[in-house]
């Protein structure tokens, strides 16, 4: 995205090119132009731009893409950690 760049080397996005059928769906759904189609195969060209929304993974018909997607705000992650540790949260807040 023009003018905005988040941390480098953190995104969990992976593409298994061996499974790719070259349908181009990942290029269609990605709002950050992370993928490119080369020789009829998708390729990750800008992993650091990935916001891990999961659109590409969910829309890939051959499950060639994996990414750890989900809530991305501090409050949401804290609540998630509390739930995992089974500690009753302070509740409220966040995008729910």
């Amino acid at each position, binding site marked *: *995205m*023009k*003018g*905005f*760049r*988040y*941390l*480098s080397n*953190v*995104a*969990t996005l992976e593409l298994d090119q061996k499974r790719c059928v070259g349908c181009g*769906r990942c290029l*269609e*759904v*990605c*709002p*950050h*132009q992370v993928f490119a189609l080369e020789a009829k195969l998708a390729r990750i060209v800008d992993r650091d*731009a*990935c*916001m*891990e*929304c*999961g*659109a590409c993974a*969910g*829309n890939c*018909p051959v499950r060639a893409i994996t990414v*750890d*997607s*989900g*809530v*991305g*705000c*501090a*409050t*949401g*992650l*804290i609540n998630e950690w509390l739930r995992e540790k089974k500690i009753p949260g302070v509740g*409220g*807040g*966040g*995008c729910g």
Partner: protein
Amino acid sequence: MADHLGACMARWGINRMDFLVPPGLYAIGAPTPEAPVLVTANYQMTYDLVRRALAGRNVWLLVLETFGINVWCAAGKGTFGTTELVRRVAESGLAKVVQHRRLTLPILGAPGVAAHEVQKATDFSITYATIRAEDIPEYLDNGERTTPAMRELSFTLYERLVLVPVEIVLVLKTLLVLGGGLYLVALLAGGSGAALTTVLGYLGAVFTGIAVAPVLLPFIPGRSFAVKGALAGIAFSAVFFALAGGALWSWPVQAASFLAFPAVSSFYTLNFTGCTTFTSRSGVKKEMRLGLPVLGGALLVSLLLVLAGALVY
């Protein structure tokens, strides 16, 4: 005007749930069985934007039940998703209304939808058209082809600004509880003047983290939101120091204010990552693993400073 007022109130979280458009199939203009079918959420503001963009055209609009949540957030939750889309296609009898088998979806709805599964279940194929509703007319005129610009996200000053009210409303309860507690403690420890200063500083630090830093986001150095928030918080601390007569405070209190306020701002700016469309969950996790101990440490040290200062002075 009434629409506009309602929209503003909904942004502040007032009567948000009254802003529901009944889900189902709507005809915009006089669409034929060949007209495209656009899919959207039943959040009034989204629906209004789409309807306005489509004014004067003849298309079908399939509104999904997203419980008054916008497309992007609903896709994240999965309510703008495969299951709801499949159900809504069946319930609306869409297959009898139109002759083609194509659905046009907003790109930001894609995280909730698996296009191939929808096609398997309904026979309708999915095209993700544009990010913004304003681009739909050009998309339709363009032979239903997406240009690179229609796929490019933006995060303009205005787009950041409209997020601030919601963020403030979400923390009001916390502010009341923590601010009240802080006031009482400071009142007992240092009298009403100190209590007022403490609470004002706290509220200012929160506001800096929640509103000032997000609005100034691209102008604050660094990529880390925690760092951006801390920098904004340090700037706030300096301004507050000057305005509140910090020169008269004891040095432990002075030091504490420059530790605690930036920590508070930093946390709230970090939390703003939930509102952006370019931060990744893994990035936020990393920031939290590194940042939360630092923020907690800063708060603890400033508390100890104030306590020690109170004993000595």
